[in-house]
């Protein structure tokens, strides 16, 4: 046995241990959650539940407001994603191609929305919303979600646009395509992976948003995360587990679907200030 480890070398062993720790740290809680969600009775010292059951799934899914919240959340996330694309893609293109003064500061200012404590920012926005009658409206929620998504949706596509070389656009002009056709046929398709990644981020972050929604959307707009808070408070642990599985599912599905677009390059490129 010893010779085996020695042949591996110390570095390999350290790497292996780190990997194991990493897996336990990240996948452990998830696994625990999955088991909890399908357990009937599970008392402390046992490694596995004493009995399995889907009764809490039934309970959660039979709640009307739960189902409603799921469809509401998906509706909001879809609208937020579409609106962010419409607003941010042209901005991203402008940042990438047109060198106007202070463009770097504009990009940087998007970071600021993430630098302040969220709640403080939301409260000050809420004051404004109150004046304009946006409290407790669908539009209000969409806007408050977009405060968060503006950053990904501008930075990542902007770097994607920047990676399209001028010569590639120019040779399309040369071949006879007007500026609009060049954008549709050359620039946009080449930047598509970056835009896709940003859109997925946007969708997921909107699905997950609770603070702003809570503040702006009460009392009528209950999204998944908000329902979850109340359910966790009122019912046993297992409901919380069931709910988190439901909440995590879209994330996992989207990320798997997007795997072909998500390359480290695109992500790293998205966060450069140029």
């Amino acid at each position, binding site marked *: 046995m010893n010779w085996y480890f020695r042949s591996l070398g110390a570095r390999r062993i350290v790497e292996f241990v780190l990997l194991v720790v990493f897996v336990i740290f990240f996948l452990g809680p998830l696994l625990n959650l999955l088991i909890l969600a399908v357990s009937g009775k599970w008392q402390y010292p046992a490694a596995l539940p004493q009995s399995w059951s889907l009764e809490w799934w039934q309970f959660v899914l039979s709640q009307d407001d739960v189902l409603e919240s799921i469809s509401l959340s998906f509706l909001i996330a879809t609208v937020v994603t579409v609106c962010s694309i419409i607003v941010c893609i042209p901005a991203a293109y402008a940042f990438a191609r047109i060198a106007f003064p202070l463009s770097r500061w504009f990009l940087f200012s998007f970071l600021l929305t993430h630098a302040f404590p969220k709640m403080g920012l939301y409260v000050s926005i809420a004051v404004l919303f109150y004046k304009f009658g946006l409290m407790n409206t669908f539009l209000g929620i969409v806007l408050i979600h977009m405060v968060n998504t503006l950053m990904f949706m501008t930075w990542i596509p902007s770097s994607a646009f920047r990676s399209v070389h*001028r010569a590639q656009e*120019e*040779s399309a*002009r*040369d071949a*006879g395509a007007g500026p609009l056709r060049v954008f549709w046929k050359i620039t946009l398709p*080449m930047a598509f992976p970056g835009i896709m990644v940003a859109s997925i981020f946007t969708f997921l972050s909107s699905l997950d948003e609770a603070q702003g929604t809570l503040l702006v959307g009460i009392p009528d707009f209950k999204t998944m995360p908000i329902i979850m808070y109340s359910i966790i408070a009122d019912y046993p642990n297992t409901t919380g587990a069931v709910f988190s599985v439901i909440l995590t599912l879209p994330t996992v599905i989207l990320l798997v679907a997007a795997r072909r677009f998500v390359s480290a390059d695109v992500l790293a490129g998205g966060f450069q200030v140029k």
Partner: protein
Amino acid sequence: MVQAQRKMQTQVGTAEQGDTEAQLSIRNLSKIFKTGDGVTDISLDVQPGEMVTLLGPSGCGKTTVLRSIGGFLEPDSGDILIRGRSVLNLPPEKRPTAMVFQSYNLWPHMTVQDNLAFGLKIRKRKKVEIERSVTEALELVQLSGAARKYPGELSGGQQQRVALARALLLQPDVLLLDEPFSALDAKLRMEMREELREIQTKTGMTMVFVTHDQEEALSISDRIVVMHAGKIEQLSTPQDIYDRPGSLFVASFIGRINLMRSISDGQHIAVGSKVVQQDGSTSIPAGACTLAVRPEDLYLTGEPDSLEGTIRQVMVLGHYAEVSIHCEQEHLKMFVPREQAAELHSGQAVKVGFHKFTAFSEVSS
């Protein structure tokens, strides 16, 4: 036959500058960037079927001229005519030009086939016709098997050939090439050069080629425009530019050359102990001047009127040898056949002579 014809046209073109028949005519083009760099007063006529090369050191404005022709830069003044019509007000997509850029020509999300068909589809050609032209173009650049591949799956040289094929497919009145081979290794570059020349003979297309490689320019051009600091320094055939450089800059930029400080008295030029007679064509006023002699025009000799020196180094480079000679305060390089080089060694005292030379007055250049 075609070659001969083109040569004829070239000569006619050279003879009648400003001829309205010119395929491409650049008149007093100027473009100065905010930084103060740019090109000034560029005038050039390119005849149908001619290959003209813009040659000059990095930053001399070659790309600026080419991009102005292609429509990617708006000149400050001057005019650009293609087949007699000004194209200055046309955007790139409306100009009868096609450009091969130095790099990043192809669209990585399209197959080679789609890359090539892009321009033809915009021109609303029939599908069958597009198919056929694309196949022909790929055959022309010897890439018949690559139609279904993506640009990322091709080597650098293959990509540049696809770019060339795409430009050829547009059947431009003038094909513009901006250092299209500079990213390739020496051997491939040579092959591509030959291929381009062959394609040009086959299609009779008018081409403006940009390079900073003088060897490349000498080997493929009908005429060369030597540029320096945004201006045309000399415009002539490769032979002429090599044999009769118009300025000290051209002499030292094109090929290798020995420059010797010398003194002119109006009729004779003295370099060290050797005195040469000026020929009638260029007369150098009395005063300091520079004598330029190609290494291959120097020879070892026993003549009395010659330069005395000692050999510093003999380097055998294949079928010839390069000999460095320290000669009356100058370092000279000369080429000798390999057999002769065997008898030479460093430290040896020799006499060097030459007949062919170009003289440049220090006052004028």
